């Protein structure tokens, strides 16, 4: 495409939304596959910008992995129809189908493309990638999953998400690994019920939106950019609250979905899995706090020659802080 203006983006965005809806509301596996393909096809123009070599390369990588996954998915569907007569009692096919869907999502062990691609995209595209693109593979996963396999995948997700992020300085890669970690939580919630997954996913996407919009407004891509500008107090506070909320610290908003999922874990007697969930959560919180701790101590590191001005749309920041802090308490009023 020659120009990359907003009307093109709107068009492809519309098709992107529509494709997810096709995928999740079809009553045949073919429909699902069609939706996935249209998803891929409409996302590529959104992320590729022919003026920038990095984004071209990123979109190419994205195309390759996703198409590999789609091909795999189609193949397994066909095998399931033709050779095994659509019985539901076969293990192998469910494993293969789940693997391909996991590759679509960017879950371990097929996640190697995910941090790379996230590094090459802008913040808003990242937001799309991390939230919307996960919907249809998740729901398709819920139609036909293999419990043991998925538990193994969950554990791998959690561990890789936490350990991989320890050594990163790029904020995008950090959020990518955190996204992989949260995928572990989400896959488990899919195994319990779709409603639960929806709850977790909504809150997760809200938190990610707040963070990404903050970084987008400040145009920050790397960790050292957090320290060399002169943020005013509300931005720092918002950053603090959102990171802690993402890490799942009470009383912020992000604690609620994790709490409920741990509740279900313990009801279903997944004790060791609970342990792994919690320990990896701690590692994640460690590297969140490592990002923000110096900015909210009394003597913080502050360079005075770069001054971050308050922009016009800072009301969004205040609103998002308010939501993060008060959601847990206010949510009790909803269910009254």
């Amino acid at each position: 495409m020659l120009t990359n203006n907003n009307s093109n983006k709107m068009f492809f965005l519309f098709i992107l939304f529509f494709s997810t809806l096709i995928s999740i509301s079809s009553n045949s596996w073919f429909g699902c596959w069609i939706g996935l393909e249209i998803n891929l096809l409409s996302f590529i123009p959104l992320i590729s910008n022919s003026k920038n070599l990095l984004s071209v390369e990123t979109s190419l990588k994205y195309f390759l992995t996703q198409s590999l996954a789609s091909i795999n998915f189609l193949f397994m569907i066909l095998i399931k129809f033709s050779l095994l007569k659509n019985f539901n009692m076969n293990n192998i096919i469910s494993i293969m189908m789940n693997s391909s869907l996991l590759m679509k999502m960017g879950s371990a062990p097929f996640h190697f493309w995910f941090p790379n691609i996230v590094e090459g995209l802008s913040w808003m595209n990242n937001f799309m990638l991390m939230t919307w693109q996960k919907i249809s593979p998740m729901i398709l996963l819920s139609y036909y999953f293999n419990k043991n396999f998925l538990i193994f995948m969950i554990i791998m997700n959690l561990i890789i998400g936490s350990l991989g992020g320890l050594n990163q300085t790029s904020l995008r890669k950090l959020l990518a690994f955190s996204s992989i970690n949260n995928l572990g939580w989400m896959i488990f919630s899919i195994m319990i019920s779709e409603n639960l997954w929806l709850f977790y996913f909504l809150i997760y996407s809200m938190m990610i939106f707040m963070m990404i919009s903050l970084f987008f407004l400040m145009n920050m891509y790397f960790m050292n950019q957090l320290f060399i500008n002169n943020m005013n107090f509300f931005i720092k506070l918002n950053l603090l609250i959102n990171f802690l909320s993402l890490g799942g610290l009470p009383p912020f908003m992000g604690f609620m979905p994790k709490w409920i999922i741990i509740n279900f874990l313990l009801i279903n007697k997944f004790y060791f899995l609970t342990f792994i969930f919690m320990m990896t959560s701690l590692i994640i919180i460690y590297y969140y706090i490592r990002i923000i701790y110096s900015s909210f101590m009394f003597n913080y590191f502050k360079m005075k020659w770069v001054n971050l001005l308050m922009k016009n749309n800072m009301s969004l920041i205040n609103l998002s802080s308010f939501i993060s802090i008060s959601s847990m308490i206010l949510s009790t009023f909803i269910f009254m």
Partner: protein
Amino acid sequence: MCFNSFFFLFFFMLINFFFFVYFIMNGLSVFFEWEIISFNSMSIVMSILLDWMSLLFMMFVSLISSVVIFYSKSYMNSELNLNRFIILVLMFVFSMVLLIISPNLISILLGWDGLGLISYCLVIYYQNLKSYNAGMLTALSNRIGDVMILMVICWVMNYGSWNYIFYFDFMKNDYVMFIISFMIIIAAMTKSAQIPFSSWLPAAMAAPTPVSALVHSSTLVTAGVYLLIRFNYLLIDMFFFKVLLFLSILTMFMSGISANYEFDLKKIIALSTLSQLGLMMSILSLGFPDIAFFHLLTHAMFKALLFMCAGVIIHMMNDIQDIRYMGGLSLYIPLTSLCLNISNLSLCGIPFLSGFYSKDLILEMVSFNSFNLMVFILFYLSTGLTVFYTFRLIMYVMINDFNLMMIYNLYDEDYIMLNSMFVLLFMSLLSGSFLSWFIFSYPYMIYLPFNLKLMVIYVSILGSILGFMVSNMGIYSLNKLLLSYNLSSFLCLMWFMPNLSTYGLSYIYLNFSQILFKNIDMGWSEIYSGKGIFNILKNYSVFYNIYQMNNFKIYLFSFILWFMILFIFFFI
């Protein structure tokens, strides 16, 4: 703030006085009770017992505290935060009043703990190292008593309420009462600094002098005696009372000896307080609670006066407390030396001052009833020692030559301090006879042979002569202290008991905890949980990054590899 609290406390004292006279003349006693909460079988009530004993004690406490607050307006006038000091003193008085009027163990605990805590705050008021150490010693020794009272509260729950005064007649021979009496005695011993716990009282002289006058002479240390007076009906036939007799007599004796070796003015007065406390405790454990109460009150008067005079002298000597630098002060500060002399002589038991009535009564009761030879000897010996160190003090401070500097200005005309001392002077002259006429509605029957009656005077004269002789030190006099160094240091340092209760108790644990800290906190637990885990995770992350930073075709290939692995793995 000073004047307000002074007037308030003085007015309170007058109210208490009038009520006391009314109550003791009519034999009344009033009991207020307010039930706070009642659950299952225990009920927490807040009760107030007003009988003549508590009213009299409250009157004395409020008199001394009002005078001390007035005194501290001038003594502590260079203190920036004088309001804080006054508030602490007022809180102390409040805790003491709570202790006095309560027939109920929970409010006794509140008063008792309040006393311990606020005396800690007051001892560390000058924030230097010595005050900190002294405060820690004070607070922790008092804490033992607090723990004992807490346990008594726990044990008394067997009886259904915490109003102990109702249970004395009925439950005397019960096993539970046995344990309760043991704990109460230990609590009183910690508060009144008897032998195992006596190291805090000389150390607490690091407090400002008004604090010493109020707290360490008359109120805090007598709280233990007061508690035992209240519990007296319970404790009379118990074995522990005899143990208490033994320990308090030894306290009396030991502090009398140690005061003779001391050269710090406030420490001498502290040790004399300790000696008189031993006297009070011993006469209490011999079975005479009212005489103990009488001596408590008269002692409060002259001891507070003595401390206040000491404060004036210390101010004049440019904050030097060592008596070797003082001398001949009677020539220069007549009014202060008047108060000092009268309170000292009252302490010795010179006839017809206030101390005479109580001390002489005690000694005559000891001689009249048939007690142990050791009890008898130690009582009279301690009386002689009291006179000994008193006269030594008077010789050093008042009579011998002035030792400080060539040019001096001894300022006696601070009428704020002097007026407050005059009030106590008036009381310490008259309170002996006044109290004996009120408290003892009929005199005790005492019938003694002539020499035994005069035994007090004999030991007093002997003590005064010895005091005179000991204080004749000049440039060329031989310091015999060094010839008997071991014995002298044993007697001087309070028979080494402070070392036992401070260094002896804490050294092993501190040493052990240093070993633990170095080896575990800063050693192994760093490897196994602190930095060690971080290093492990970091290495894992570095290891993972090697896989992450690769070519894209490696990723694609790894996907296929993973497919095959998972296929095989889960197929089986």
